[in-house]
């Protein structure tokens, strides 16, 4: 665990492996603990992986005041790259992390070599939203930690996987609980995702892009990945069957092989 001062933050990050830099950007309220250790180990054999806690998440020290925006978080990621002397990198963002990755490539195209957008949308003007029930459940932060994770897992993973992967769910639960975001920061991040809108700018992205999603994603419906892939010139789309918003956990090995093929 290491820290870097970036803007008004003290960002908690970790560097793993050797090779071309690959930056992994986590989603709403997630800390770097959420990344699957097997996923990281496999990528670290080939790449220099940078994982970190976004503004308001995990152990990154974040001021209480003010609004959080996706553009600001993209600036944080760029600032962290500068602080660590990473000129450019492959960038993979999941969910809210995918929104940050879009702003990063739009605002700092020189920093991104290849782009991977997982389980994300391109924002307000061109997205298909979750049902109201799902959004309510996602925003519900009541109850004990165990109840909160259980509720979240019921949205993140599809039912069949939840039932057949008790041990994986338990491990994910523990990684979730390692450094959970507090309620005000979760709310600030959520507002950032709602205000995000990059739809109109996507056609200007000139980087090789892979868009991926789980076909049973209820948090960010898979239609959004089709929309993104249709708007970024030359983007490749992969949809995973029998997987939800958490397809990178549910279909880890399949996604790893597709990801490595794309990154080369």
């Amino acid at each position, binding site marked *: *665990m*290491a*820290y870097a001062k970036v803007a008004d933050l*003290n960002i*908690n990050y970790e560097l793993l492996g050797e090779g071309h830099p690959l930056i992994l950007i986590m989603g709403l309220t997630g800390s770097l603990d959420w990344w699957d250790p097997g996923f990281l180990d496999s990528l670290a054999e080939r790449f220099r992986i940078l994982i970190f806690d976004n503004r308001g998440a995990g*152990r990154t*020290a974040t*001021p*209480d005041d003010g609004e959080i925006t996706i553009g600001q978080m993209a600036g944080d990621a760029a600032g962290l790259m500068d602080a660590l002397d990473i000129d450019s990198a492959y960038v993979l963002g999941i969910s809210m992390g995918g929104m940050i990755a879009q702003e990063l490539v739009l605002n700092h195209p020189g920093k991104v070599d290849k782009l991977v957008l997982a389980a994300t949308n391109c924002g307000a003007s061109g997205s298909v939203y979750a049902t109201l029930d799902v959004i309510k459940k996602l925003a519900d932060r009541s*109850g*004990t*930690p*165990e109840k*909160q994770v259980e509720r979240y897992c019921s949205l993140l993973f599809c039912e069949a996987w939840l039932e057949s992967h008790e041990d994986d769910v*338990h*491990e994910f*639960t*523990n*990684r979730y*609980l*390692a*450094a*959970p975001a*507090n309620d005000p920061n979760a709310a600030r991040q959520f507002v950032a995702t709602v205000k995000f809108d990059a739809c109109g700018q996507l056609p200007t992205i000139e980087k090789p892009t892979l868009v991926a999603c789980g076909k049973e994603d209820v948090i960010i419906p898979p239609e959004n990945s089709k929309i993104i892939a249709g708007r970024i010139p030359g983007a490749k789309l992969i949809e995973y069957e029998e997987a939800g918003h958490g397809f990178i956990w549910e279909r880890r090995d399949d996604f790893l092989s597709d990801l490595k093929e794309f990154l080369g």
Partner: protein
Amino acid sequence: MEFVEVGDLSMCCELTGEGYPIVLIQGLTANMDWWDPGLLSALSERYRILAFDNRGAGRTVTPEAGDWTCETFADDTVALMEATGIERANVLSVSMGGMIAQELALKYPEKVNKLILGSTFCGAAHTVYASQEVLEKLTDTSGGPEEVLQRTTELMFTPDSLKEQPEVVEGFKIAWMRAPTSKHNAMRQYMAAAKIDTYNRLPEINISTLVVTGKEDILIPPENSRIIAERIPGAKLIEYEGYGHSFISRMPEAFINDLLEFLGGS
């Protein structure tokens, strides 16, 4: 909540209320959210409260390398007081926080107006330890945060309150979750607590002191508070029936009343 650069730390702290300062020092692996909101609200009407996350706990940014003693934490606390413009304060402490407060009162007597030592011990040869079973549970690092939380809750609360006050237990779990402490830091804090030894020096404390404990504390048995109260000249001891190690977060009205009476507007 704000972050203040103190030595090798970026300390997460919060200043609330108006009046004479009172510094709150938390225990092993605790973050400042563990303080009972009712206690904070009662104190904030009369005092300026400084609450914070200790070295290695909660959100305080702490280097991964290095070992600590309770004196290290006392130094941090004084440095944080200085950084936040507090020259002298009442000090309210619990558990490992009480060990830190003892070192603080011994090393920096000019910084402490009145001292409250809650649920704590003075160390080494003069400690009445928890049972083997309890110590094993405390130092059990198996499993993840979910298991740690379960074990912590069982140590903090009496079986009765686990059954009868689910809302208090739930509140504790939610506070715990706001900033859990890593295993590595938990062990480093535990080692600092295990090394405390102030017994011989306690008679040097020339500060008005209140010692409080829950009579059913299995983590730091109440005998320890009796020992401390005997060693500190003029110290007052209060034991609360029916409360365990978590007695401050279970917030007996009686404790707030006793505390405010002891502080007496100072």
